[in-house]
Each structure stands twice: as structure tokens, then as C-alpha cells.
């Protein structure tokens, strides 16, 4: 590999990292918020897929991709609210509900989405940051989608809000000690319902990115488990929104590895490189989890850490 193609690969990975990381970023921020309040929502995979489908459908019917994004978020709120409501019922396990909602979300998306596989919907525009360069490859790499930028600011805002706002303190309290939260007069179930719903909003928006920006069309194999990988990502990020951002970039870069290598003609092991995010997920879980110690930084009320 000569220097030119190495630069091409790196540039392609940079661009790919930003593109591929956006859904990871949104789902992981949603999951981070939900888990900070003491619940795990594995259903975000379903929210992601259903968000992708409904965002695409709305964009197709209204002609506005931003209405699609918003609609996908609203659908996510609905999914989150179902999870939050069911989990407050006695003897209900949040993980089981999450799996049920994951299957329901993907199944419903496939069912309603059949009609939208063919038609072309309006896609999200991207913002050009590469005007200063004459190199078309650089210009292309710096075509950044607006959701990525929104996601970055969302991560910073969440990080700040967990420390500096009443809501942030309440969510952290609820996730860390139900007993303490109840003693403070906090309605624990309501906080978790709201956190899960807002988390669902983020995941829905992440889904709309898949169908409206990259890859940019609706198909049934769109998500390929990104919603579930985002759960591993939150563990890796130790429940810190800023670390979620970094981890999402890392996952994005891993996901961009295969296409980037292909762009310079290395197609050997293409499928292997495409599997990089999955291998990374496995690796992270092995490194992060040990039978001998508990997870550091985990909200104490999570059903997996209790």
C-alpha cells in the first residue's frame, strides 16, 4: 500500500466514522440516559428500525426529511413509554420487556415498511466543511451530516446536565439508589418512564439517520444489530455521555474499515473487516466484564449489576 492509498483509506475511515457513528451515538445517548435512571432498554434496536421506517415513510409522504426525523423521534417516545410503563408493573423484568419490544419494533417495521422499499424519499442534506480544499476527496469527506453535529452537542449537553441541573441530579439519584430517591420524595417510576421515553426519542432519531442519510434508503437489513451494539457501547463508555461520543466514533471507524479498504481496491477479507464492529463488541464485553468484580461506574439500580 503506497502513501496515497493510505491517505485515501484514512480519509475514507474518517468520513465513514462520522457517518457510521451517528446512529451509534444517538442510540447510545438514549441508552445512557435510560440506564442512568436505573433501567435497561434492549428494545432500542426495535426503536431504531421502526424509527428508520417511519422516518422514511414520513419523509416520502411530506417531502420533508426533517419531519421524518421528528416523526421517528416521536415514535421512539412511544416505544420508550411502553417500555417505561410495562416495567413499573410488579414483577416485570426490564430485559425481557426490552427483548419483546425489540422483536415487536423490527417486526412492525418490516410489516408497515414493505411499501417503502422501492420509492425514493427526500434525504437529509449535509453541510459542507471542505470548501477550503481543492481536493475533491477531502471535500467529500467533509460533507458532514447535521445529525452528527446535533448528536455531538447533545452529548455535551447531557454530560453537563447530569452535573448541573435538577433533572440531571434526579435521574442520577434514581439510577443509583431507589431507596434514597423514594426518601427524597422522587416518583421513581415516573422519572424512569420519562428517561426511557426521551431515550427512545434519541434512538428513533438515530433510526431516521439510517434511512434518510446513510445508507439513505429503507430496507429490512438496515440496522444489522446497531441498536444492540450501542448497549455494549454504553458499558464501554462507563455511562458517560462524552465517552459515549468517543466510543461511537470508535465503533463508527471500525464499521467504516471494510468499505474504506475496498475503496482502494483491497477487497480481500472484505466480510471480515465488515464484521469489525461485532468483533469489537465481543472484545469490549470480554474486557469490561469479569466474574470477579462489578462494573465500575454502573448505576447501582441496573438489573444487570445488582
Amino acid at each position: 500500500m503506497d502513501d496515497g492509498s493510505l491517505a485515501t483509506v484514512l480519509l475514507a475511515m474518517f468520513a465513514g466514522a462520522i457517518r457510521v457513528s451517528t446512529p451509534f451515538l444517538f442510540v447510545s445517548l438514549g441508552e445512557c440516559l435510560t440506564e442512568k435512571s436505573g433501567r435497561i432498554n434492549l428494545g432500542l434496536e426495535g426503536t431504531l428500525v421502526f424509527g428508520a421506517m417511519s422516518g422514511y415513510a414520513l419523509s416520502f409522504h411530506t417531502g420533508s426529511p426533517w419531519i421524518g426525523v421528528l416523526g421517528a423521534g416521536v415514535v421512539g417516545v412511544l416505544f420508550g413509554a411502553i417500555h417505561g410503563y410495562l416495567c413499573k408493573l410488579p414483577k416485570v423484568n426490564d430485559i425481557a420487556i426490552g427483548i419483546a419490544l425489540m422483536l415487536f419494533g423490527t417486526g412492525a417495521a418490516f410489516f408497515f415498511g414493505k411499501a417503502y422499499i422501492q420509492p425514493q424519499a427526500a434525504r437529509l442534506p449535509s453541510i459542507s466543511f471542505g470548501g477550503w480544499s481543492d481536493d475533491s476527496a477531502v471535500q467529500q469527506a467533509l460533507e458532514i451530516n447535521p445529525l452528527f453535529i446535533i448528536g455531538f452537542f447533545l452529548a455535551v449537553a447531557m454530560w453537563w446536565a447530569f452535573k448541573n441541573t435538577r433533572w440531571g441530579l434526579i435521574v442520577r439519584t434514581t439510577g443509583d439508589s431507589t431507596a434514597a430517591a423514594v426518601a427524597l420524595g422522587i416518583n421513581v417510576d415516573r422519572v424512569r418512564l420519562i428517561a426511557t421515553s426521551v431515550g427512545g426519542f434519541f434512538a428513533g432519531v438515530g433510526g431516521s439517520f439510517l434511512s434518510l442519510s446513510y445508507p439513505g434508503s429503507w430496507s429490512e437489513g438496515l440496522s444489522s444489530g446497531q441498536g444492540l451494539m450501542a448497549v455494549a457501547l454504553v458499558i464501554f463508555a462507563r455511562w458517560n455521555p462524552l465517552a459515549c461520543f468517543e466510543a461511537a466514533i470508535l465503533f463508527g471507524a471500525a464499521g467504516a474499515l471494510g468499505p474504506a479498504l475496498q475503496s482502494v481496491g483491497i477487497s480481500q477479507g472484505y466480510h471480515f473487516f465488515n464484521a469489525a464492529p461485532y468483533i469489537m463488541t465481543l472484545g469490549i464485553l470480554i474486557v469490561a466484564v469479569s466474574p470477579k468484580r462489578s462494573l465500575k461506574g454502573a448505576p447501582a439500580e441496573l438489573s444487570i449489576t445488582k
Partner: protein
Amino acid sequence: MSIAAADQTQHDPSSKGIGVETLGVTKRFGSLVALDDVSIKVRPGSFHALLGENGAGKSTLVKCIMGVYRPTNGQIMVDGREAVIPNPRAAHALGLGMVYQHFTLVPSLTAAENLVISRANVPGIVNWSREHADLEAFLETTPFKVPLDIPVNGLSAGEKQKLEILKQLYLNQRFLILDEPTSVLTPDEADEILGLLKGLTDSGELTILMITHKFREVTGYADDVTVLRGGQMVGSGAVADLSVEDMSHMMIGDTKLREAAARAETSVPALVVELSGLNADDDEGLPALSDINLKVHAGEVVGIAGVSGNGQSELVEVLSGQRDRSAGQIKVYGANYEPVREKMDRFKVFGLSEEPLHNVAVPSMTVAENIAFRSFDKSPIASLWGWLHPAKMRSQARGLITAYRVKTPSTEEQIENLSGGNVQRAVLARELSGDVDILIVANPCFGLDFASVAEIRAQIMEQRNQGAAVLLIAEDLDEILELADTVAVMLEGEIAYTSPIGDTDRRAIGHAMAGAH
């Protein structure tokens, strides 16, 4: 007046302690009468102790005062006026606050965050520089000092307890209920905190109602005392007018306690258990035990004292096979020992633990099955092909239930339906009915009534007298002082102090527990 008091409604150091009275309070849960016509009077600015056994109704009474329960009958007077307290929020509004036995702080939040979140009017966006200035000013008005900026899970038990009390003062609660506030503290920490609280009541700033079962704290700090037994008020008065004997008689009534078994002289000091260089990590992967060296001889009780969280539970887990050790050896009679079922059987190793229902019993299995845990896979219960004989299991259980006076409707009752004392007796029956060479005991009397405590301690002493090597891990210093031949103190995962019981006393052990030599 401080800045904190000037611009916030929370803390006002000029306000006075308030008085609380209950008049004929009765509380029924279905057919169970938890409180029967209880009247107590806590004077404003007094330090009032509430004594009683587990189940005497102390918690129910304070929960009625705090609005957690509504009394079935009777009235609660706050500052001389009848008060209706439908929920804890109403109690807080009246200036009543409670420090629970288990910390209600949020572990991952800092002390400052814990204080601010406890307020009723947390601003939407917290201005931390102003809050910090306010908190510093507030701390100036109290005798308690706690670091504000590290997460609560990094504080010592004493600091957490101070922070719990600070939280109530910060909220300007002028009547404080403390539920066994010293149970997780070293004697020195307990004395410090109770002394500071006593200062606040003496100056009239605060009224305290303290639930306790330690006479030392009652005679040392309280002005008045009320004793509850079986849901009834059985005595009340100034502490100065009552002796410890009077109070203990009020607490247990005419129940005959089993007499403490005499400590028999044991002659042959054969070395049975030897721990050498034992190391283990805690759940975070940090070292919890470092180089534990300990010897236990036949006919000896080695008592391990220490504030909880200094490695005792990890030590018990290593010895019972629930935690891997990272280095070191356990030797029994000079041979290497691994805590697995087969070796436990061969070396006759048995154990008792705190909260047996949680640790060493299966709650939803029957009493007979729980009693058979050590013997179900052996003759006569098990036959050659691994088939069990439930009838033989039941008849073995019936014998032990009688011998150890376990109160249960039948052998087929689920063990979780028994009272705490009876669960511990059933475990006692399982562990002590055979030949015991080694006994590992951890806080066996935690949460039990006096009669059960006396029974269990007598049984442990009996095993010692019969030549068992006993390792007793206890947070209750009185238990160590009563039973141990040799005292060891654990501090931060190390054995910080050892001494024959005859050469030491509560003070020396207490200092070692606190890390002072």
C-alpha cells in the same frame, strides 16, 4: 446570621428544637397489634432514647411519627399542637427529620450534590459556585465536618453518618429521629457523633429521639428514656433515675434468657486452622485482604472485630469458597485446605452467618430440605443410586427441630415463613448437630431478639468447650468480648491488632478499629 440562612429557607441556626408527644397511639396491621396505646413525651431540646428489642414496635412508632404509617388510633402532638401527618413530606414540613439505619445517601453523588438534591426547591439549573459558598457557610454553623466534593461511596461510615445528620440540619429539621445511628461506627466515631449531638440538644437547638439497644449510649448521652416491649410502653423516665438493670428488665420482661455457657479451660492448644499470607480482591478488583495471617487452635474462639467493610465479609467469603483468593494458603491440621464441599465434610468445617435466610438458606424450600443441606447426599437420606428418601429427611428434621426448639408449623413449611430467630435456629441445627471441628461464624446474632442471641452465643461457647476451633467475625464488640479467647481487629484488609482477651479491653480494641495504635 449566615448567608445560607439569609437567602434560603432551609437552615436557620437560631431556631429551637421542637417537642413531640404521642397520645395513646395504636397501630394494627390486620390482626397483628404492632403498637398498643403507646404514649411517649419527648421534651423540646432533650436527648431521648427509645429502647426495645427487635419487634418491640420502635420502628412502627417512629414511622407513625414520620407519617410513613397512619396510626389506627391516637394522636401525635408536635410542639404542643395536634398534628395530622399523612406522609413523610408533611412530617418534614413540621420540622421532623429521620436518619435511617441504612444510609439513604446516593452513593455516586458527592456530599454537596446529596445535600442540594435533598432540598424541596432544587433550582432547575444548579449554580455550583453559589451553592458551594452557601454550603461552606452552613457547615460553619454546625460542629460536623465532611468533605463536600468526593462521591459519598468514598466516605467512611462515620462521615456518611455525619452527612446524614448534616442533611437533616441543612433542611432545618429540629426534631431528629436516629435509628441505631452507631451500628456501623467505631466506638470512637460513635462517641464523637453522639457527643456533638448532645451539644446541640444541650444548647436547645435540636431535639433527638434515638432508637438504640446499647445501654452504654443511653447512660452516656440520653436525658430521658422510654422502653417498649411487645408493642407497649413499659417504662419511661429520666436516665439518671434508672439503672441498667432496670432498663434491661423492662426490655425483656420476665423472659428467661439462657445463661451464658461458662468458659471451660481447654488444655491442649492444638493448631487447627492456619491462614498464611491470605490475599483477595473485592468486587471492584481492588485488594480487599492483604496478607492475613491467623491461627485458630482447638478449643479457642478467635474473635475478629472491626467496622464493617474492612475486609471481614471478603474473609468469610474466601473461607467459605464464595470468593477466590489471589494469594496465600489455608491450612487445616497442617494440610492444604480448599473450601469445597468434600473437604468441608472431611475436616468437619461448619458455619453460621448473618441474615441466614439471605446467605445460607434457600427461602422457598422447606425447613426439612434446608436442614438436610449438609446430609441430603449421604446415607441414610440418599441411597446408592442417588435417590432421596424424603421420609428419612423429614424424620431427621423432626428430631433436630425438637432438639433446637425451632418454632415451625411442620417440617414442610417454607423456611422463609419462619421468624428470623427460628431460621437461625434451624441453621444452627443443621450446622451444629454433628461433630464440629471447625466453626466459622459471622455476625450470627444480627437482628435477633435477646432470647435467640443468648441461645446462639451459648451454643457457640459449647462448641468451643467441646474442642472446636471457632473463628468468630463480628461487628458487635460485645459479642467479641463475651465469646472470644483471642481478639483480632481487621482494618483495611489487614489484621491490625491481636491480643489475648485477658490483656485487652473495649478501649484498646476500639482504638485499633479506628486505626489508632
